[in-house]
């Protein structure tokens, strides 16, 4: 009984943090499932991919008009992302658990660096007008070849590690392609679901999804994502990000230790 409740709570926490920070829940779920519950990493990745879809669905179901994703942009980028995700998920069965653990540690450290830089540059919108500015303005996405290349990488990493790839997608769309930050975040939230689906279907047909793990975590993540999406406008996310940076560095260390065989 406590196992299922613990899985739901872990999923809930991952969903809240993912929705608040625009990262998706996978970056928290995979290490939690492997380190706390001692699950094989492929089982953790399979459950995480399902949970990423649940996160995306939860956020999409409560998204406000005018604050949503640029679906046209998302689908264009998804051509590259889903292709990368398909390749990554096919490759995952051929890599050892240790390699996957090291890869995940690299992702955690990259996410920590991205989150830290975001904390340093964060400007909290003080008015509704400022918030609207995150979503408005005429923009024309630029640097398509580089953008598509990075999206392929994000997809491949998603398929290998069970993350959504948001820590690549948002900065690429915002900094490289010139998309407003609010639109980039909302578009990334939409995209991670499709990206994860390309990999999740491979894991599903391969039998690497375990319902007793995936179901409680997905339920928790869905509830957490909706809660996080509603809480986001009311919280000082910058403070939360600093704690997250420390957590991610610790997680990276744990995954490296696990990969070494500790």
């Amino acid at each position: 009984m406590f196992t299922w409740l613990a899985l739901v709570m872990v999923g809930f926490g991952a969903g809240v943090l993912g929705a608040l920070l625009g990262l998706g829940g996978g970056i928290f779920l995979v290490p939690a499932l492997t380190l706390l519950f001692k699950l094989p990493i492929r089982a953790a990745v399979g459950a995480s991919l399902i949970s990423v879809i649940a996160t995306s669905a939860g956020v999409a179901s409560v998204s406000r008009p005018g604050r949503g994703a640029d679906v046209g942009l998302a689908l264009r980028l998804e051509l590259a992302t889903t292709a990368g995700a398909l390749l990554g998920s096919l490759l995952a069965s051929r890599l050892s658990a240790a390699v996957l653990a090291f890869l995940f540690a690299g992702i955690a450290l990259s996410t920590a660096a991205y989150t830290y830089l975001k904390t340093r540059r964060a400007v909290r919108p003080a008015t509704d007008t400022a918030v609207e500015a995150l979503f408005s303005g005429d923009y024309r996405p630029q640097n398509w070849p580089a953008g598509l290349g990075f999206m392929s990488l994000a997809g491949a990493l998603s398929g290998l590690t069970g993350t959504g790839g948001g820590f690549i997608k948002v900065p690429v769309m915002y900094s490289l392609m010139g998309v407003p930050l609010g639109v980039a975040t909302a578009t990334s939230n939409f995209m991670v679901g499709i990206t994860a689906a390309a990999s999740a279907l491979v894991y599903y047909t391969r039998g690497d999804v375990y319902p007793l793990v995936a179901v409680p975590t997905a339920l928790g993540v869905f509830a957490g994502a909706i809660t996080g999406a509603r809480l986001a406008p009311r919280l000082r996310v910058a403070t939360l990000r600093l704690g997250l940076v420390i957590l991610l560095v610790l997680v990276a260390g744990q995954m490296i230790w696990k990969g070494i065989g500790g």
Partner: protein
Amino acid sequence: MAETDLDTLIAARSASPARRYGQQVAHIVRRVSRAVAAPALLAMVGGLAAYLTEVSGWGWAARAANPEAGAGRVLPGPAVASLTRLGQSSVGLAAMSLGLLALAALPAITVLLILVQNLRNRRWLEALIAAGVMGILVLSVLLD
């Protein structure tokens, strides 16, 4: 109808064609997410409860039902049942597997409906792109 959906539809009718299209698509994404996720989650919850009841316990019998588990371990449990093996699985496991499959297929359903909307609006390039994404998602099921 929820206030936000009504606001969306009213705004869509008075907006420029491009903005109206964007709002139509956003409306589709929102409605599909709610329509598919809810029954999928219900199937998962019901399936989990049924499975745990089927194994006649929340501890010892659950471990006994999982021959791969070590002493005291319940997780990870049985793997998901594929569509061809649903009939051979327990009711609980089948319900959980169907719920997980529905959730995994949700993005594909969303992209398919966006494809249909693009065709109805005669947005051929957007439809082609959506068809491309659908093709990759279908390929992911066929390849392994």
